[in-house]
């Protein structure tokens, strides 16, 4: 037993060969939530990555070299994520991809920074990019960029003075809740009810009756897909008629599919959506559905974009240089006209946050309708 295990470990060490030899494939490492509570997130992210790599390799790769990725499972557990990232870094990848959970990003990003390898991740918690880490990049809006837009909309368009906030009690939900409550304070919007819910919660009757009792002008819902669908159904059943506002997930295709009629009228800010009125995004969605037979959520898009970020950055450098990668990506603007795989124009700032256009959508008769396009800032 023991000797077998040592042999295995030694083998893993030895197999880290010269990764950057000319013509050899460019090695990428992905660590994602392939099992456990974040399996939906991680598998979408992984499929997006695989799709992009397949496309790029079919067209001859990056600078004439193929891309090659290894996927590792964090089991949605930060401890395991740390081990897997450590392992990935020991093999000296060109770029590290993932994880998707903010907690897992938090424990792994110091490792990548220490190794001097850029990490392109899916986490959305505001604080991730506030710590001065020079190697960490987002693929989507952080909560600190999306929530102000939601709060502004609730204030300007919905003219709500009191809002009930329903959030899922994990790092994703709590993060969003904390940022939006701060934003509400700026507009003097009162939080009429502050409802924590559990991931996987099935029964929202009590939560909705609390919302009813609080009689807010609007409800802000920040939950995962399934829970979003369930609460929408319950809100409809208990005849709550005030506007329902969300961010990305609430108005996603999956929620509409699961909630049916109950999703009608729900609104939300969406940074990345496969329903965006952008031709390239629609084309992506078709390709994805063709390959995997389901409609991806925004995590599928994030994985896909991560790979094209690598391609655009490498093309810009003109060489495969892991040390210069992060510097090049900071301040870089990638235009969809030049690199169609990036789908929409995007700019990365010095913190690794992104700037891209966003959308305000509403569900009308089971379809996402874009009510407003929020342009890219610069």
């Amino acid at each position, binding site marked *: *037993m*023991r000797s077998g*295990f*040592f042999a*295995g*470990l*030694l083998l*893993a*060490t030895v197999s*880290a060969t010269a990764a950057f030899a000319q013509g050899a494939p460019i090695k990428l490492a992905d660590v994602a939530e*392939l*099992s*456990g*509570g974040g399996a939906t997130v991680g598998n979408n992210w992984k499929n997006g990555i695989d799709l992009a790599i397949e496309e790029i390799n079919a067209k001859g790769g990056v600078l004439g070299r193929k891309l090659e990725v290894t996927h590792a*499972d964090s*089991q*949605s*557990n*930060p*401890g395991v994520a*740390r*081990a897997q990232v*450590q*392992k990935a*870094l*020991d093999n000296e990848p060109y770029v590290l991809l993932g994880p998707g959970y903010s*907690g897992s990003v*938090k*424990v792994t990003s*110091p490792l990548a920074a220490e190794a001097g390898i850029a990490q392109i991740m899916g986490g959305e*918690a505001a*604080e991730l990019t506030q710590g001065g880490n020079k190697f960490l990049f987002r693929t989507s809006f952080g909560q600190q960029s999306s929530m102000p837009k939601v709060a502004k909309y609730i204030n300007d368009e919905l003219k709500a003075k009191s809002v009930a906030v329903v959030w899922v*009690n*994990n*790092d994703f939900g*709590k*993060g969003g809740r904390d940022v939006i409550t701060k934003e509400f304070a700026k507009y003097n919007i009162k939080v009429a009810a502050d409802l924590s819910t559990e991931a996987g919660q099935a029964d929202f009757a009590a939560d909705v009756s609390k919302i009813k009792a609080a009689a807010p002008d609007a409800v802000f819902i920040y939950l995962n897909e399934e829970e979003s669908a369930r609460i929408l159904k319950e809100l409809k059943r208990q005849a709550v008629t005030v506007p329902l506002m969300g961010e990305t997930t609430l108005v996603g295709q999956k929620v509409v599919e699961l909630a049916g009629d109950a999703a009608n009228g729900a609104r939300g800010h969406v940074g990345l959506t496969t329903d965006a009125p952008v031709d390239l995004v629609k084309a992506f969605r078709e390709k994805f559905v063709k390959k995997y037979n389901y409609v991806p959520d925004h995590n599928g898009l994030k994985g896909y974009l991560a790979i094209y970020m690598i391609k655009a950055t490498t093309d810009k450098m003109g060489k495969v240089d892991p040390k210069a990668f992060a510097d090049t990506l900071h301040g870089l603007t990638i235009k969809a006209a030049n690199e169609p795989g990036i789908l929409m124009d995007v700019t990365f700032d010095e913190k690794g946050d992104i700037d891209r256009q966003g959308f305000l959508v509403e569900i009308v008769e089971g379809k996402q309708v874009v009510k407003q396009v929020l342009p890219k800032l610069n």
Partner: protein
Amino acid sequence: MTINGKYWRIALGIAVIAALIIVPMNFNRYGLYILSQWAVMTIAAMGLNLTLGYAGQVSLAQGAFVGIGAYTAAIMTTQGLPLIAALGVAIVLCFAIGWILGYPALRVQHHYLAFVTLAFSTLAFLVFRNEDWLTKGIYGISGIPRPNVLGFATNRPLPFYYFCLGSLAIVSLAMWWLIRSPWGRAFVALRENPVRALSLGIDTRRYTLMAFAIGSALGGVAGTLYAPLTQYIDPVPFNLSLSLDLLMMVIVGGSGFFFGPFLGAMIAVLLPEWLRFTQGYYLMLYAVAVMLLLIYSPTGILGILDRYLAERRTKAASALRAVAKSRLETAP
């Protein structure tokens, strides 16, 4: 056991210990991390093995005790207190809570006990997550420092691994002492036949509570090592699934065998590595393997080994007896 067998076992033991010290010197950071994780999980599983394997009390709360230990270490060391102080607090805390949690074990057995401890596990998770003022809630505690041991900094992976290995060695020696002491004998009696144990003057209540308390305290010890190992903790790793994982480790390795947790933790920590070629199927295969193992041998892998050795011994003994008998019969 013959003298030869004894020497052979001592030699094997020394070889394994030497290998654990020398071989990892060339390991990369990941290898060291995995080995450190193995040492930490082994300590937690040893605690559960005492409660479950020796004393026969099922617990689904070991993960929660690892959590209590980890939070104690994280909170205290980020305040600048030394890890050794945190260790002391964690042991006392887990021992006391384990003692209290043992009380239901005096009233109920088996499945009821499983559910009491399961409930405790859930409650502990909720406290970790909801009490922001203490645990920083779902955001977790980051920047947990690694300790200085006898003047040596353990920031680098190799020294920290030796720190974990040293802790494991100390815990193993203490455990070895415990199970060879009259207490260990009383624990086994408790598991095998509590009625008879009572009639021999064994205070089964006190020993049951002790088994719970000591087992839980070891969970706390594992937790105080886990925190500086990952240097970041949040409530998620300490949910029910850690308790289930630890239970599986004890069962798979061999519950009630001293080396069971070592083996079980090794399989659990390294199995994803071995079964990587199976991609997403590995947990499924693991589950099936555990079921098959339990059907074949409810005392785990070491149980199979033990049975094999016992059979050989019985065969040898009955052969001897047959020889002796034939001599008697042929005697004039």
